[in-house]
């Protein structure tokens, strides 16, 4: 059996004239969490839907768990779990009824179904709310129910489309603990997000921008091999500093993080910190300047900027 869970070649999807996904190549290993990082409209959901067999690619194709998509989409259904971006269970059914429904749909019956639902209720802390209608749940509770539903039939591969966008930070941490536990049991997880901290938790990730993969690899590797020097500037007047820096040709981009600025500077520049320090002094902006370790956000900005016209 191939060690790759997903392999995509030239995956493309057009909606009318606009290209949502543009020749995406993917190699996603088994038993790992693979992330899609990108802004809204970067093609994350469309790619996931093509890999699930919900959308037909305009060009290219993919092999998912050894099955060709979209041709064998129907066979794939039993092996995958899909957690949609929007809550897609039934709001007028209770937590337990939703899980019972899914159990029946996946042909898990009788004692086996009861045992599995009980197990899920324990694992995802759903026991106290089992008799509550899904429509009355909080964001975190809904998310736990949705994940419980997506894993009910113990799929080999789990697609999670922005699973944490409506969830508080504590629930997010708990959620990721659950994902690691699933991977330990052999599940492969493909998760899309626009949160940097979440992307950093993935074993590997692809950065998507306007339908293209602009960078991919392990997060540490991406941060280490970023194609720019990262200069951190601390200034009492960050806005003035920013204006001054943006006029410098060697500076690709400037992003503000609280009172600090991160500037991505051309690698060719011999001593970027000193160069920027001088530039700021000439502009009469008070600032402390030093080299910094690249964050994933820097990687994201560098990757998306270099592909812009």
């Amino acid at each position, binding site marked *: 059996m191939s060690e790759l869970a997903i392999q995509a070649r030239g995956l493309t999807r057009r909606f009318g004239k606009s290209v949502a996904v543009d020749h995406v190549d993917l190699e996603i290993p088994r038993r790992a969490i693979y992330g899609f990082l990108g802004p809204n409209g970067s093609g994350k959901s469309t790619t996931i839907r093509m890999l699930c067999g919900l959308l037909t690619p305009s060009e290219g194709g993919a092999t998912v768990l050894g099955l060709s998509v979209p041709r064998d989409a129907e066979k794939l259904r039993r092996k995958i779990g899909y957690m949609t971006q929007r809550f897609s269970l039934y709001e007028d*059914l209770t937590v337990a009824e939703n899980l019972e429904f899914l159990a029946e749909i996946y042909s898990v019956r009788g004692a086996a179904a009861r045992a599995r639902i009980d197990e899920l209720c324990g694992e995802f802390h759903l026991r106290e709310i089992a008799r509550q209608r899904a429509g009355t749940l909080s964001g975190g509770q809904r998310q736990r129910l949705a994940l419980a539903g997506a894993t009910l039939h113990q799929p080999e591969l789990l697609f999670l489309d922005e699973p944490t966008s409506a969830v508080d930070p504590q629930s997010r941490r708990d959620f990721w603990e659950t994902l690691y536990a699933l991977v330990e049991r052999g599940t492969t997880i493909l998760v899309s997000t626009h949160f940097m901290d979440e992307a950093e938790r993935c074993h590997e990730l692809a950065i998507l921008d306007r339908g293209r993969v602009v960078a991919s690899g392990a997060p540490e590797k991406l941060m280490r091999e970023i194609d720019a020097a990262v200069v951190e500037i601390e200034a009492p007047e960050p806005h003035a500093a920013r204006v001054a820096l943006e006029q410098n040709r060697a500076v690709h981009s400037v992003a503000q993080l609280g009172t600090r600025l991160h500037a991505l500077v051309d690698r060719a520049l011999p001593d970027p910190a000193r160069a920027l320090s001088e530039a700021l002094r000439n502009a009469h902006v008070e600032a402390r300047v030093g080299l910094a370790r690249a964050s994933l956000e820097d990687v994201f900005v560098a990757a998306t900027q270099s592909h812009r016209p």
Partner: protein
Amino acid sequence: MIGWRSSLGRIAAIARKELRHLRRDPLTGGMVLGVPLMMTLLFGYAINQDVRHLRAGVADLSGSQSARFLVADAQASQVIDVVRVAHSVRELEKWLVAGDVSVGIVIPEDYERRRLGGERASAQLLVDGGDPVVLAAVRGLTGLPVERRLAPPLRPMVSPPPAFELRAYYNPERRSAVHIVPALCGVILTLTLVLFTAVAIVRERERGNLELLITTPVQTPELMIGKILPYVAIGYGQMTLILSLGHFLFDVPIAGHLGALYLGAGAFVAAALTLGLLISTLAQTQFQAFQMAFVSFLPQILLSGFMFPFDGMPRPAQLLAQLLPLTHFLRIVRGIVLRGATLVDVSSEIKALLIFFSIAFALSLLRFRKRLD
């Protein structure tokens, strides 16, 4: 074997889920019982083609005794109630225009002479011809035996006996409820059942449930059958309610075999539900589904023979009506309930309904894709 069992399991899961939705949606739940109850009571009492007590005005220009007898005879028929007396024809016409009266009786000055002469009509009835039912009722008055009461000494036995004697079969008292209630059964089932399934799939699409559902192993026919099944039972329940109300409240006799009726109704219920399902696969939003359902209601109600007799319609309208499930069901239900028809008598209607069901179901399957594109 295993395949069949899991398939049946999934159909049961969908059907059970639908029933749960229904139980928790008070509006739709209300439609199940409320609409048949309300409409049967309302229309059973209100729709009455046996018109009586029309408001009438009289302009008696002759002032003769025989004219007063004529008016009294007309009143005794119960078709009209004389509510106003006019002094001139013009005044009477004014009331007709204003809608104060729907019938005017004009008795000319020379009424006595005309009555005895017998060449021309003795008096005039002015009717608002806008409503054919009213017109037909009033036309009945023209046959009143004007001459008989006072005439004998002067003109013995002149009026010949009528050429035909009318006998109304199956509804001898000519009560409207007998005619209306069985047909109402079909109309109410059409209105509710088509709406139930018209929103069934599009609702899941709108609420985002469909994206999850189509990533599961559930097959399209399983989804469709699971969606229809609970409403078949509900349709039977509604029909039972309407017929019971009709039988016990409006004394509608049930001449034929109930088993035959339920069998025929099964084909109709399936056809109506599948029409809804087809709408559901065509519509993008629930609102669109409602609109399409209403568009399908009008021709069914107007052309099926519910409102107007089928035989009176022009040929193209009749052909169109043959395509509508309600047309066939009305023949089944009227045939079995009123005329005591057997299953064999209505078999061609059942066949037509089954053909409709098969085509609509096949089209729904073709329209529905387990894809988002």
